């Protein structure tokens, strides 16, 4: 199944962030494949009919299995900054033209991920504080 995909998006990690990414990709009918390290979670996704590769996204073998050479983009969504950084580097080495978006827990890590080759880095706390601030600023 993974080998037949082309111009798809690889979503690494199906947690709170990954779940939302998949939701959005499905909404726009963009082809994707999920890489999930947790076997139980991967099995559950398979049961739901979603394309999944069970394994560690930092591994070249796993990313190749997910078809990274033919993928258009990779969305790295685990909550481990170090793993995300490692995955960015691995993905870039396997496909230099791939679009890379990831998450970081701190601003410092966000800048490191960008240096490593990520095109976009989302910081959950930063996004939330922005949203809360917008709401608090209303009517003042």
């Amino acid at each position: 199944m993974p080998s037949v995909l082309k111009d798809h998006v690889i979503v690494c990690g199906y947690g709170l962030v990954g779940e939302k990414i998949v939701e959005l990709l499905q909404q726009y009918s963009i082809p994707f494949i999920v890489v999930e390290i947790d076997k139980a979670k991967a099995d559950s996704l398979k049961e739901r009919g979603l394309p999944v590769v069970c394994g560690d996204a930092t591994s070249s073998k796993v990313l190749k299995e997910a078809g990274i050479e033919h993928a258009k983009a990779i969305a790295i969504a685990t909550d481990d900054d170090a793993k995300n950084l490692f995955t960015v580097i691995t993905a870039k080495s396997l496909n230099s033209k791939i679009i890379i978006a990831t998450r970081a827990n701190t601003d410092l890590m966000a800048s490191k991920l960008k240096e490593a080759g990520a095109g976009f880095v989302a910081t959950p706390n930063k996004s939330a504080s922005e949203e809360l601030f917008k709401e608090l600023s209303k009517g003042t």
Partner: protein
Amino acid sequence: MEVEEKEDTFNVMALSLVIVIVLMLVSLVVLLFITHNAYLDAYFILDVFFDAQNTAASTELAPIAFSSGIGKFSSLFALVVVDNVSRILIVSFILAAVIDFLSYANIEEFFNELRARFMNGHVIVCGYNELSAQLIERLYSVNKKCVVIEQDRKKVENVRSMRTPILNRDFTEEQAMKAANISKASAVVLASESDADNVLGALVARRLNSKIKILSRLKDEHVRKKAYIVGADMSVIPEHLAGLEIGEFVRKGMVRAW
């Protein structure tokens, strides 16, 4: 006779000097052991010096000492020594007790609550973490005042700031919200990492101020409805926001690539 008086005067001066030095050393040791406070040590050394000098030179004692020979003078100064040492001990113990009391009563907490009481239209931020720290920075950039309620002292140890009063309390308790002056606050942000605490905090905040704006951070989508039921006006799930941002970036990138 004149030579004898000169000798007496010299002895008196020498003895005074010895007494002053002894008093200084005694006060230093006593204060170091009791207060551990260098400023107080310095103060008491000066105080002792002043007292010893005053006593020796007072109009009542000096003539007796100078006219009655060195023996009587020595006994007189022994009294001065006892008098000063006892003063040092008494005042040191009183100060140590006051310092102990102040640290027990947590004077910082008291002043923080006092500052909160005088605030109006402020934002109460419940829970201190990366998210709330960023929010507080943003609020201060537009001169909006905040009060932080965080029970875990370790979390706020390194962020003590003159700008933000921090109350070391449990924000799910009414007394904590009241201490943060919720009746005069414009908004409450429940930013802790526990959905249950945030929902409970929203409930307490709404009960205490029916007009206040209540915003909550959540982790679980299913809790959102509960938060609104108890009175939250808006909620955010940081991870969902990040997911949407990443998804949107990827989608736009795909569109451009095609």
